């Protein structure tokens, strides 16, 4: 079973897109629930993204990818 790392619909203002500025954990690494795993940026505002569950991180969207609200950027398996 895997848990998606979803970008919440209310994370930033309006319909703007954001950029994944960093993955702070490597693909395939173990993460704990609530660990800081990624950072994304919109309007010069940097958002911290946490692991929604404990498990192994699978990255679906690489650094510098442009994403919209609701996107799944990774999985915790």
């Amino acid at each position, binding site marked *: 079973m895997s848990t998606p790392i979803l970008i919440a619909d209310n994370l*930033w*203002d309006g319909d703007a897109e954001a950029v994944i500025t960093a993955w702070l954990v490597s693909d395939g690494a173990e993460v704990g629930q609530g660990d800081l795993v990624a950072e994304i940026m919109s*309007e*010069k505002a*940097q958002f*911290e993204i946490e692991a929604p569950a404990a498990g192994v991180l699978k990255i679906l969207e690489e650094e510098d990818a442009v994403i919209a609200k609701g996107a799944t950027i990774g999985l915790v398996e």
Partner: protein
Amino acid sequence: MTTIQRLPVEAGLDAERQLLDQVHAGALDCGLLFWRPLDAALVMPRRLNRLDGFAAAQAACVTQGWPVALRDTGGEPVPQSAAVLNVALAYAVPASDNEQKRIETAYLRLCEPLRAWLRGLGLDPGLGEVDGAFCDGRYNVTLEQRKLVGTAQRWRRRPSDGRHVCLAHAAVLLENQRQAMVEVVNSFYAGCQLPSRCRVASHVALDELLEDVWPATDGLLDCYRQQFQTTGLVLSP
């Protein structure tokens, strides 16, 4: 009276992180920090160290007297020196805030007291993008259509109550060091094989329009206190 801490750039960035950590931990709901660098550095988001040519560009900045420091907020490279006043505002988002305007609201909470302070000094500040400015954005505070203040933010969620917490940061150019600042930013971009994009004329320093700029900051804290009273934020001492 506004108390401005004098700190090395790295210590100032650490102080901002600690302010956000305190709000995140629930130790306070709203805090404000004013600091002025003791040294000079070219401060940029951590992601820029992935750029091709970063190491060479970083070395070139060091030889110009602007070592590179990495920050946690978004944006592009910004020179920091004793010419700059930094304002860091951290708070837990009140439940009454419109969640679809959180970024804008945070920028306005940071910028409107700065604009009120400048109006009190007899100036006419604007808000908006400035073509050719370093670290340009929609929430620059401007004078005469030139950039005086740059802004950025960092956000995280507080696990104890699910509230979002925000660090909003402003860098105010009080003393005229525009030439050297734009040169080092363009030098960094050139070292990374990126076009030089910044112009000296896109910036303005407060001491080009006013005398005795540092004593003039005395009234700034009161401008924040007055605004917070109307927006429901309670500033911790």
